[in-house]
């Protein structure tokens, strides 16, 4: 087909709603709009869920059109600007170990998969930051942030806000496995204490702390899967006020399993944030849960 001949086609067969386009069997024609990210989250999810049960031929045609559109965009829109000096150093110094990455099955299209509602709808820099669009305002804000210890800016708020902490010597009977594994060593330690904290977005996190084992076990209860493209990341907040230390990432699958966090003796609290897939070097999004350790 000659694309020029399509120009007079009345509005290209599209309707006003993505859902109606899909119902009319036009999913493949949405490939370009999808590749351009010109749909909102709900529409993206609708397209992906439609594709999941669409005939293989439609899925393949859609993927091929998306791939070509992405190549076209990468070739055509080539704005360049020198990033700030020192950014590479900051990134390099923060690279997490690759082994820590839980790897969900590779999807044919980035972002394809079941959509879950975001746990944290707002990133930490909200309108207050964006109101200062002028360079001076942004520069001033950066200077202010540099004066604070690295990575602490979001944390102090989160830990203080974790108001309802239930502490008690709760017995643990649920975990029965090898008594010598680190998990059970903590849970069956004579000095184990438990705290359950609410997780913003739903569910709770139960933290079992054993000072004698210098470790804690974190178990998420009824916590929704992280939004697409995001993971939960666990941090220990050192007592000495230094930057939080990442304890690893939890994707949807890892959420159902208890996690062991070691070296809690020097930590004042444990926190959980929502971070971009792959994790962050320092907490960048608001805290969804925090628990004092008192180890």
């Amino acid at each position: 087909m000659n694309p020029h001949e399509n120009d007079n086609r009345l509005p290209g067969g599209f309707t006003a709603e993505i859902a109606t386009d899909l119902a009319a069997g036009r999913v493949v024609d949405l490939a370009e709009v999808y590749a351009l990210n010109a749909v909102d989250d709900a529409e993206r999810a609708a397209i992906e869920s439609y594709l999941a049960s669409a005939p293989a031929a439609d899925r393949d045609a859609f993927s091929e059109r998306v791939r070509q559109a992405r190549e076209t965009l990468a070739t055509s829109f080539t704005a360049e600007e020198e990033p700030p000096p020192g950014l590479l150093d900051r990134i390099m110094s923060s690279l997490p170990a690759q082994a820590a990455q839980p790897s969900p099955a590779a999807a044919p299209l980035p972002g394809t998969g079941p959509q879950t509602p975001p746990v944290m709808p707002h990133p930490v820099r909200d309108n207050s930051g964006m109101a200062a669009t002028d360079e001076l305002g942004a520069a001033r804000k950066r200077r202010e942030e540099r004066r604070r210890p690295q990575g602490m800016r979001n944390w102090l708020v989160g830990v203080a806000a974790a108001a309802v902490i239930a502490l008690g010597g709760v017995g643990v009977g649920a975990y029965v496995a090898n008594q010598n594994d680190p998990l059970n060593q903590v849970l069956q330690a004579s000095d184990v204490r438990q705290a359950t904290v609410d997780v913003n977005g739903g569910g709770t996190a139960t933290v079992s702390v054993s000072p004698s084992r210098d470790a804690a076990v974190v178990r998420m209860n009824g916590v929704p899967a992280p939004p697409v493209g995001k993971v939960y990341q666990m941090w220990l907040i050192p007592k000495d006020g230094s930057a939080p230390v990442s304890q690893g990432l939890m994707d949807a699958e890892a959420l159902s399993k208890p996690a062991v966090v070691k070296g809690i003796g020097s930590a004042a609290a444990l926190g959980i944030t929502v971070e971009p897939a792959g994790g962050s070097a320092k907490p960048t999004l608001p805290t969804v849960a925090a628990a004092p350790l008192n180890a």
Partner: protein
Amino acid sequence: MDTPNAPNPEAAAPAGTSADINGRLGSLLGLIAQGDQAAFAEFYSLTSRRVFGMARRVLIDTELSEDTTQEVFLQVWQNAAKFNPAAGSPLAWLMTISHRRAVDKVRSSQSSTDREAKYGASSQEIDHDSVSDEVGSRLEAEAVVRCLETLTDTQQESVRLAYYGGLTYREVAERLNAAVPTIKSRIRDGLIRLKTCLGVS
């Protein structure tokens, strides 16, 4: 001219073209997947101007753009092993990650009114992207300019508003005071025409 899938006359990939760069980026991704930090630093030096440049166009704010760039490269580090050459070139993979992240960030941090206002201020220079001394790269940039001219003005405008403005098709329609189905077809037809002209296969 309009034969779909016509071979790209510039496909021989002289130094400085994206095909040439993609070859190197693909090798680097293989090394990065094994934890090679030197390869990561080289990947950054080859691509960070593109990633940051895109983030600045979409987000305007320098600090948000810097955060986005950092997140994109952390994702490169973590996901290099998942890069699949069959699903696209390294540059398209990287810019897809970058655009999605920039768009997510701009939509969660700014109202669409703010974005449209800011986009107006930044959209002036878009025709002058990609200034390079490399001969191959210059030829490629000229092909892009030539191919963009094969789009109608309204197609160009719709694609650009969506790409650098971070707008949804619905927001583009509101901004241009056009019917929603019309914008969807402009985006589809514009990108397909651009693809055909550039010989993207």
